[in-house]
């Protein structure tokens, strides 16, 4: 399977990612209980909710990192939860980008190495990979920092590098889990500003998990997760067609 076989237009309803009636438990703890959600191609969707409500678990299921106990995960017209482990890993590398709250950069490597890494894993040539990394540095206001080790960066710089690394492979979907969670207000805003600006330019879809309403206000739309269920803006549980 190549990444290109997966590049299909979203279905007629415009849905790029869809989860239907997901259940996921960790031991006796139910994390998702009949959770359903559709994400349209190109939209920035905020997933809000109190801590422990199941937001991260939902994101991990949507991105094929976790397999749900029950329910369906669709991406671009395909059942993600029915792919083999290798198939899912390949799909994640080619079609998804990730930004988390902490600890996603390799501290011993330089900023440029970190950004080029996903391309190198996808067998892009060294030269092309580093050229693209360089272009992303400029785009995110990180000029001149390419040779720094990521352990030496400020929190805001590190999140911008993480953003560059997530987007360098031109993913269809960016999954961001509390990307501003460890930043102060102004730095967090700058990261959100950049994230929404560049993903709109790239036409990427964004699933943004945050408990912070000021961060969610950068999104086009929001849903709430409460006790493992997805709640829409009217307070009703989200249902999707089977």
């Amino acid at each position, binding site marked *: 399977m190549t990444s290109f076989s997966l590049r299909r237009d979203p279905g007629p309803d415009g849905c790029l990612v869809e989860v239907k009636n997901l259940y996921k438990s960790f031991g006796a703890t139910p994390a998702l209980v009949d959770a359903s959600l559709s994400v349209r191609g190109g939209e920035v969707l905020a997933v809000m909710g109190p801590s422990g409500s199941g937001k991260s678990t939902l994101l991990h299921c949507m991105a094929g990192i976790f397999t749900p106990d029950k329910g369906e995960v669709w991406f671009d017209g395909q059942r993600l939860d029915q792919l083999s482990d290798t198939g899912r890993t390949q799909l994640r590398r080619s079609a998804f980008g990730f930004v988390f709250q902490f600890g996603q950069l390799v501290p011993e490597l330089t900023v440029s190495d970190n950004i080029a890494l996903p391309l190198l894993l996808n067998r892009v040539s060294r030269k092309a990979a580093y050229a693209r990394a360089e272009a992303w540095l400029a785009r995110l206001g990180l000029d001149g920092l390419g040779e720094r080790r990521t352990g030496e960066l400020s929190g805001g710089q590190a999140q911008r590098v993480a953003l560059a690394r997530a987007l360098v492979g031109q993913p269809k979907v960016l999954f961001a889990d509390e990307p501003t969670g460890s930043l102060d207000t102004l730095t967090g805003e700058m990261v959100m500003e950049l994230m929404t600006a560049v993903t709109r330019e790239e036409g990427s879809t964004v699933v943004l998990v945050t408990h912070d309403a000021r961060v969610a*206000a950068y*999104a086009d739309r929001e849903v709430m997760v409460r006790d493992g269920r997805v709640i829409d803006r009217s*307070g009703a549980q989200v249902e999707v067609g089977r």
Partner: protein
Amino acid sequence: MYTLSVYFECMLARVTVVPLTLLGLLEREPSHGYELKRDYDNYFGGGRQLPFGQVYSTLSRLARDGKVSGGDTEPGAGPARKRYAITELGASEVDEWLREPADPEPYLQSVLFTKVVLALMLDRPADSYLAAQRASHLNRMRELTEIKRTTSSLMDALQADHALFHLEADLRWIDVTSARLEALAEMVHAR
């Protein structure tokens, strides 16, 4: 300028909320003016008492507008002995007010609190009202964020920020209240 307009909005909120709140209280059952005042002070006064004069002037305006009927005068008595009942017009006004999210402006807390308690008293779906209010707040926050992103004026950006922080505070209150609706409903019904 901005602060001043917020101040007037607060005043306006109090002026429009009192009649609607009295109407809501009347929707439970027909009541005398002093009963309405007692319940208003108890649930919504927040330490401040509603003057009797305001109760009766509000009720007579509501009667004039056909939102309450003020029949049942007991013989030989002033306004205090009148029993008021809500009319269909009054009831539909309460319903509409509870259902419609309030305009998301800063300093709304007392209006939101009043709506939630009344909704619970009247067995309305307070949770979906709060969800609608939440959505309305987030829409406004999105607009303000867009202003911040696009404006070249630092002053506009800082004013938008001020509103954003206050709306965020409202939203936190909305979330905490949503999570505690059952307990609040019990208190309201236990009166």
